[in-house]
């Protein structure tokens, strides 16, 4: 929802953003692989003030049975926000926004997961947003990839995600909540860096064709930063001190 009038200065004369970042600087990102005992794979991400927990189950039997596919396994994703995750209490029932985000995250992960190896089964990805602060779908997608890898599910690549956008007529990396509300454009991108494939792409806001190109490039740059942190999280869990 671009162009809302606020007194907030999104970009000052020194090129510093409202939360002190430079235009091409992502927020603080912390990813941890594992953490849940009962899930087959799990991950926790802190992306700025977003705090998101992801648990993966499967491949396992499909219920209801008619959803199963004899040719391939199926991927099911539920993105859910806790009632306490946002300023005003959110109705706990899944909203239309959450259903759509579940769907785009599922479709962003599908190219990465080798589901054809597990016909008649389901892989369930449960995403719980404990605290939200702009860019939850990217943070959730990045964490979901780590959780799938943690579950030992064969993957072609991990999907890393980061948003780019436009605020104060400048293309910026990793749009925060204030910039999303008062800025001019928000473009979440999910990207498989090794395969060079974009698997999630959305845009709200007006961009010229030149800005559009710059925005996609900026977002991919952010994804590559996230990708390194995803790999680091997994090496830390499985190789102890983080060395390869």
């Amino acid at each position, binding site marked *: 929802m671009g162009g809302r009038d606020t007194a907030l200065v999104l970009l000052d004369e020194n090129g510093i953003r409202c939360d002190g970042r430079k235009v091409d600087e992502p927020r603080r990102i912390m990813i941890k692989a594992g953490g849940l005992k009962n899930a087959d794979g799990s991950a926790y991400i802190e992306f700025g003030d977003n705090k998101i927990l992801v648990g993966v189950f499967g491949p396992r039997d499909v219920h209801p049975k008619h959803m199963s*596919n004899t040719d391939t396994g199926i991927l099911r994703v539920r993105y859910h926000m806790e009632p306490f995750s946002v300023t005003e209490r959110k109705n706990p029932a899944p909203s239309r926004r959450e259903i759509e985000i579940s769907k785009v995250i599922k*479709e962003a992960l599908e190219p990465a997961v080798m589901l054809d190896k597990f016909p008649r089964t389901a892989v369930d990805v449960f995403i719980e947003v404990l605290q939200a602060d702009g860019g939850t779908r990217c943070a959730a997608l990045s964490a979901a990839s780590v959780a799938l890898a943690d579950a030992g599910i064969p993957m072609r690549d991990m999907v890393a995600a980061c948003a780019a956008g436009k605020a104060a007529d400048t293309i910026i990396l990793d749009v925060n909540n204030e910039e999303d509300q008062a800025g001019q454009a928000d473009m979440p991108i999910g990207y498989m860096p090794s395969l060079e494939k974009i698997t999630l792409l959305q845009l*709200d*806001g007006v961009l010229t064709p030149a800005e559009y190109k710059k925005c996609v490039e900026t977002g991919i740059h952010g994804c590559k930063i996230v990708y390194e942190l995803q790999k680091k999280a997994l090496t830390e869990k499985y190789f102890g001190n983080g060395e390869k």
Partner: protein
Amino acid sequence: MTSTSVIDELKKFQILELLEQGKRVDGRALDEPRKLIIEINAIPKANGSARVRLGDSEVVCGVKIQPDRPFPDMGEKGIFICTAELLPLSHPSVETGPPGPDVIELARVVDRGIRESHMIDLSQLVIEKNKSVVGVFADNVVVDYDGNLFDACAYAATAAILSSKTPKWEMKNDVPTLVEGGESSVPVTTIPVSVTMGKIGNYIIVDPNGDEWNSMDARITITTDSNGNICALQKGGNGGFSFDEVIKCGEISVKVGSKIREKLKQAKEGGQ
């Protein structure tokens, strides 16, 4: 639709084989949308309406305009809401009941394209600040299905809004009251046009029909405004796009979109 039927698999094979020769199943060029028929003011009881047929996909959109309470944080702006629904008569596989993820995505993508382009100048739709504003509700119903409902619904909603006349209200004793003879056009700043492209193998095709829709690896819907800027985008489907493909799709959407924008303008002129 969890398992693809044998016929769908065969069709996909045929579609891909044709694409390798540079052809499509219905003889179109790869960047050619289907025939677009726009009938304006199809529902006279609505404040604006359109019946749009894109190939064999058909959508009726009616616009209702009525006073409403503003959103708590948007007291100086009118309300715009766009929905989409698949009627059971549109396809044998459509069942009644609450909308599934596909239909929810459809409605939200169509809404977003129009909203993010700032097509309607909502600041002009205020009756009294923070108290009462004008709400514009564009409801799409799909009556016939042959792929690419994103564009069919977007064109129907855009054409219906262009044709809409808004009544005038004034506050009297704290109640919005209709002013007779105060009708005017809905304040429009730009004409958004969405262009949906499918990816089959390594080919990008504009406006996939039903068979092509079932064969796609991924799709991308890009909305452009009258200035040729890109204002909304949604990738869907369980495949991916390369950076070059995404940029190419942006260029196609501007080029194809400008032609469709002329058709929407013509339909508006013809309807008056």
